[in-house]
């Protein structure tokens, strides 16, 4: 994936978030502070304004700018978390003009590590990591087996949705939902859901 394709993919991600804004916010109303969709949509709206100026940048720099914009404009936990994720992925892709599947996997791994550190969190705490980590592992496994990018990303999206389902079965121990403790069981995590939507759009562009 080159810069041009990356920029159009990010535009589609922004459009998807805007479309799902009410749904994501509703999920967050139940176990959080009810701002996830609104906040992410505001951030991606600001990202959209910057994308036009990035056509001559390498993909890693585009991702870094996306991350920094999200940090400055989201206003909720998804700002520092998605922001750190995009910035770390951008740093991992430094110098690459075209992102291959192994490049993407290395970038995703960096993003996961960055988000774990920023949120002081790990898998199984009812967060976006419960979708991200299985998705990364599934893409990696399918890619190793088939060398087929489309199949690998499809496996990643399926694993991410399974991760979202898994978040319904556990109590939150990080984030605003952790204040609900056991009462958060039965509800899916908004961050895991939005990440899966983002990955699904990216998968459609591979």
């Amino acid at each position, binding site marked *: 994936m080159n810069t041009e394709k990356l920029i159009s993919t990010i535009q589609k991600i922004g459009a998807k978030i805007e479309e799902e804004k009410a749904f994501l916010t509703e999920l967050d109303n139940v176990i959080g*502070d009810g701002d996830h969709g609104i906040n992410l949509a505001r951030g991606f709206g600001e990202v959209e304004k910057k994308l036009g100026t990035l056509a001559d940048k390498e993909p890693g720099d585009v991702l870094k700018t996306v991350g920094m914009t999200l940090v*400055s404009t989201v*206003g*909720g*936990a998804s*700002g520092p*978390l998605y922001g750190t994720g995009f910035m770390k992925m951008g740093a991992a892709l430094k110098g690459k003009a075209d992102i291959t599947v192994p490049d993407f996997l290395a970038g995703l791994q960096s993003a996961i590590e960055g988000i774990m550190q*920023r949120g002081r969190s790990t898998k199984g705490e009812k967060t976006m990591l419960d979708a991200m980590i299985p998705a990364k592992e599934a893409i990696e496994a399918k890619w190793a087996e088939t060398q087929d990018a489309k199949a690998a990303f499809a496996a990643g999206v399926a694993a991410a949705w399974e991760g979202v389902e898994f978040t319904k079965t556990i109590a939150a121990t990080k984030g*605003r939902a952790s204040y609900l403790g056991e009462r958060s069981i039965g509800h899916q995590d908004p961050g895991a859901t939005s990440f899966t939507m983002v990955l699904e759009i990216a998968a459609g562009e591979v």
Partner: protein
Amino acid sequence: MVGLVIVSHSSKLAEGVVDLARMMAKTAPMAAAGGLEDGSFGTSFEKISNAIDAVYSDDGVILLMDMGSAVMTAEMVIESMEGRKLAMADCPVAEGAVTAAVGSEAGASLEEILADLEQVGTLKKL
């Protein structure tokens, strides 16, 4: 004097904590960074950056945060200001602000105030 920045999702909470601490320490440099630019709930990278600038000196600035994105956004602002003397305190915001403001006004160093703030969370009220 060490500066203090109160980071909260709520502008009223941040400003209220500054007012509360001000009762005990009239001259301590304190700034509130609560809510988003439009007044809604959230934490703003820009508001936190501006609040630090407003109270910064070579003595440094301590940030007290409420929860979640307030902590993470404050951390990212600090990372963006490399070379400055900045620290986050892990303590209850209201009680911590009073402790820190009194310490600042008395001329305590950033390290001394941070050590005091570590005790704030363990103080029992009843």
